[in-house]
């Protein structure tokens, strides 16, 4: 029996009057890598950001329906409970956004907010997180440098380290490789495959090949609707919907 980490029921999202997501019913399996695919502008990022209630930063947005995380509807959460739900879900954005601080402080930021660790524990944890993303050897001698001095690929891995530092259960990745060169992209993909053992990974991607390479479970969005979802093998080898077939064959994009 598979367990599901995130489940949406009848989820609708409106920007002003524009219906961006229409009756979304999906299930995201725990400790697996789920890819959300679809052409650009079809609502992938919106869906991803609804999972940790990040859409609310934009005041024009209206959400209805249910988003169940571990069985609880997070849309019922009150304002002061929202940081908790966000802490459960790390976000890796399209363009890496290091915080305006040093490399060390970037990882320490979340740790300081959520726990009272002494200097030694903090350093240990930071070293662990940076090793986890394969960045430790590259930065261990310049932890106090501004994070902006790192290359874009390194910055993205720093963002991953920063996300896992607060011990989330889910990693929400919004096209994390789209700003990177092929080698850096490969590093990130490998990392995501490694991390899915401990975390539920949700990967938004517009490259079909990436989804084929890494996904265990696939959700296909098209113009704000879920066309098809299922385990990756079935999805790619035996798509049910004609639109899915067309997308996989590259007829629509």
């Amino acid at each position: 029996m598979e367990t599901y980490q995130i489940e949406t029921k009848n989820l609708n999202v409106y920007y002003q009057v524009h219906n961006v997501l229409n009756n979304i019913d999906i299930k995201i399996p725990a400790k697996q890598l789920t890819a959300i695919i679809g052409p650009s502008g079809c609502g992938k990022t919106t869906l991803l950001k609804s999972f940790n209630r990040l859409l609310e930063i934009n005041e024009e947005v209206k959400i209805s329906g249910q988003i169940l995380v571990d069985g609880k509807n997070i849309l019922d959460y009150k304002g002061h409970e929202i940081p908790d739900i966000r802490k459960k879900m790390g976000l890796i954005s399209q363009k890496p956004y290091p915080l305006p601080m040093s490399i060390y402080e970037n990882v320490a930021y979340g740790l300081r907010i959520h726990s009272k660790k002494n200097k030694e524990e903090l350093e240990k944890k930071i070293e662990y997180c940076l090793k986890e993303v394969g960045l430790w050897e590259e930065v261990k001698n310049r932890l106090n440098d501004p994070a902006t001095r790192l290359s874009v690929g390194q910055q993205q891995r720093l963002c991953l380290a920063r996300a896992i530092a607060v011990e989330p259960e889910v990693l929400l990745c919004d096209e994390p490789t789209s700003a990177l060169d092929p080698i850096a992209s490969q590093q990130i993909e490998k990392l995501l495959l490694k991390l899915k053992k401990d975390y539920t990974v949700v990967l938004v991607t517009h490259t079909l090949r990436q989804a084929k390479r890494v996904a265990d479970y696939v959700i296909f969005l098209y113009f704000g609707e879920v066309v098809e979802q299922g385990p990756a093998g079935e999805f790619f080898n035996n798509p049910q919907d004609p639109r899915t077939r067309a997308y996989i064959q590259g007829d629509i994009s």
Partner: protein
Amino acid sequence: MELLNKRIIEEKLFKVLMILSLCIVLGSLFIIFGIVIFNGASSISLEMITQTPKEGEVLGGGILNAIIGSIYLALPATGIAFLISMMIALYLQRDFTPSWFSNFIRFTLDVLWGIPSIIYGIFCLMIMIYLGVGSSLLAGIIALTLLEIPIITRSMDEAIKMVPIGLKEVSYSLGSTKFETAMKVLRRQAFPGILAGVLLGLGRGIGDAASILFTSGFSNRIPSSIFDSTAALPTMIFNLYSLPSGQPKAYAAAFILLIIVLTISVASRLLTRRFKKHVIK
């Protein structure tokens, strides 16, 4: 071909216009600097900056009381205005306030920015008369604070508004609250803009005569408490210039004011460099 010629002429015309505008602005700046430095530096003496005016002797002694008075007035006023403005500017962001309301506050602040400083002076004077107190350093500080708040708030607000939304999202998704995001991320990222706003306010405050004319009054002595009246450089310049043969000294006072403003400006810009290195582009 004819169309191309027209476009090239247009291009050149605009270039000339831009250079011309630049020349007018820079030209007037250099003329002001030139006059102040030429007239001021020649009549300045060590006595001017180390002594207070001599009692009973017109134009005797120095203007130390005004130099100290200006610093006592402008620095605390800018400090208080900074603290209040920082809070207002953060509150104006979308994270805390719906934009219809913050846009209304922004409009109000812009109106306040445009109000002549003499109005602030008279407003404070009215309150002082109501309370039955005379002119004092404290009243001057309050008038300057009120004058500086709209200026500092609006510049900070613009700087904080420019922080990329992606950076906010990252901070929120790590589970930080709005307050933590504002104080630790927005403030750091917008720091250069915030400092520029504070400098703008300080420059306005230290150079303003009208708002302190009635509120801090005038005195030949260095104030020993915040309830004493005090002279400041702008009011000193005004007083000296209206005296017969007081002009060289007035220029010297203007020269000192210029030096103080320049020093603060350059020093803080050097200081910003240390913080700027973390800013995300």
